[in-house]
């Protein structure tokens, strides 16, 4: 009895995975016609990126400040406070910037996407579009997907820069690490490949989070409860997959 239930749940999980994959391919196919309406994409870049700007900047600032505080107190034991800039830059560029941005993005913009599309589904707006021979994939889903992909690397870069200045604020202004060495040691230790790694990561996270958010909204049950459940699933799935892909990408570039 319970065995059957478990098998049903496993099958449901596999089905969901298949649905997402098929949706991904359909979404990619819908991206080309969506590019013919750049105005829609611009609106979604603002929805996904511009509206997340404040939370990203605040989080970046505090993350950098914590890095400055903790890094200084640990490095001081070895008399190596001058390496604080290097520590903060590498941690932000390679890990904290892309990952935290993706998690915040999933919470701020991903949920908004899911509930918006889910509500469109629940109120039959998507069906109405189909009746009017407007493809909702290229008119609703694809612009949101592309907007998320474009917004994510930009948000991560802003997070990194604000974080660096946060680390500098605490490390240099408050704890007295030398300003010149903070920046010069950072510049000599950070290579172009570190920056590229961060950008590639945030691009991949952008695809993952946007895909999940749009897909969950599109597939949600057309009820109030269904939209709520889909929104929850977006946050859970996007966060877990972001961290999973983070490990895979980190291992890949090692």
């Amino acid at each position, binding site marked *: 009895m319970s065995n059957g239930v478990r098998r049903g749940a496993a099958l449901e999980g596999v089905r969901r995975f298949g649905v997402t994959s098929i949706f991904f391919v359909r979404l990619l196919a819908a991206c080309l016609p969506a590019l013919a309406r750049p105005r829609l994409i611009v*609106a979604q870049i603002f929805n996904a*990126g*511009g509206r997340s700007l404040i939370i990203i900047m605040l989080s970046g600032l505090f993350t950098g400040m914590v890095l400055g505080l903790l890094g200084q107190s640990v490095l001081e034991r070895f008399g*190596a406070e001058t390496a604080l800039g290097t520590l903060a*830059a590498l941690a932000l560029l390679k890990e904290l910037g892309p990952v935290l941005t993706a998690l915040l993005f999933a919470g701020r913009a991903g949920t908004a996407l899911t509930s918006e599309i889910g509500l469109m589904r629940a109120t039959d707006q998507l069906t109405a579009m189909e009746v009017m021979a407007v493809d909702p994939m290229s008119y609703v889903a694809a612009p949101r997907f592309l907007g998320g992909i474009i*917004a994510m690397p930009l948000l991560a870069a*802003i997070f990194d*820069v604000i974080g660096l200045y946060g680390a500098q604020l605490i490390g240099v202004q408050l704890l007295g690490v030398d300003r*010149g060495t903070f920046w010069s040691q950072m510049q000599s230790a*950070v290579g172009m490949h570190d920056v590229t790694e961060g950008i590639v990561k945030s691009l991949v996270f952008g695809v993952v989070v946007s895909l999940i958010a749009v897909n969950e909204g599109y597939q949600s049950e057309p009820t109030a409860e269904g939209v709520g459940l889909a929104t929850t699933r977006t946050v859970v799935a996007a966060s877990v997959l972001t961290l999973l892909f983070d490990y895979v990408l980190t291992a890949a570039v090692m």
Partner: protein
Amino acid sequence: MRATRSLEIGTGLFVILGLAALVFLTTQLPNSGLKLGFGQAPGYAVTAEFDNIGDLKVGAPVRMAGVRIGDVTAVGFDNQSYRADVHLRIYPQFSQIPEDSYASIETEGLLGGQYVGISPGGMTTYLKNGSQILQTQSAIVLENLINKFFANFSSGGSGSSGNGAKTPNQSQNPQEPHP
């Protein structure tokens, strides 16, 4: 119309901010010739030549008695003398550093970055814009010291001969100019 206009402005602002951050990350962090945003404080320029500057970097502090009095603005190489040519900028309030002062490359702690330390000389004429510090001491390369020590230790016992690990990296300055 108003709504789309403000939306376009918001999007533009966000994209410009993001691109500016990307440009900052790609041009300022990896070691490039571009100058970073920290303000160029006024001061006067002084040069010094070293046999070996070790790991000294642009932006490293210049210290006198432990107090920061300037920073390193450029590190070059002199093709005639085969020595490192270090440009220093001393803050204007430290205008009374004797001309025969002595510059050395020192390390903060065991693992820290390197900086230029200046010990005052005794002359009553002072360093000014464009002058050169003549007496310098190179960075002490820890590996060389250890090598010297072990070479000395294994061949013929400790400290029996006079040419031990005493002056491994001293430059050719004839006198010992510490005050």
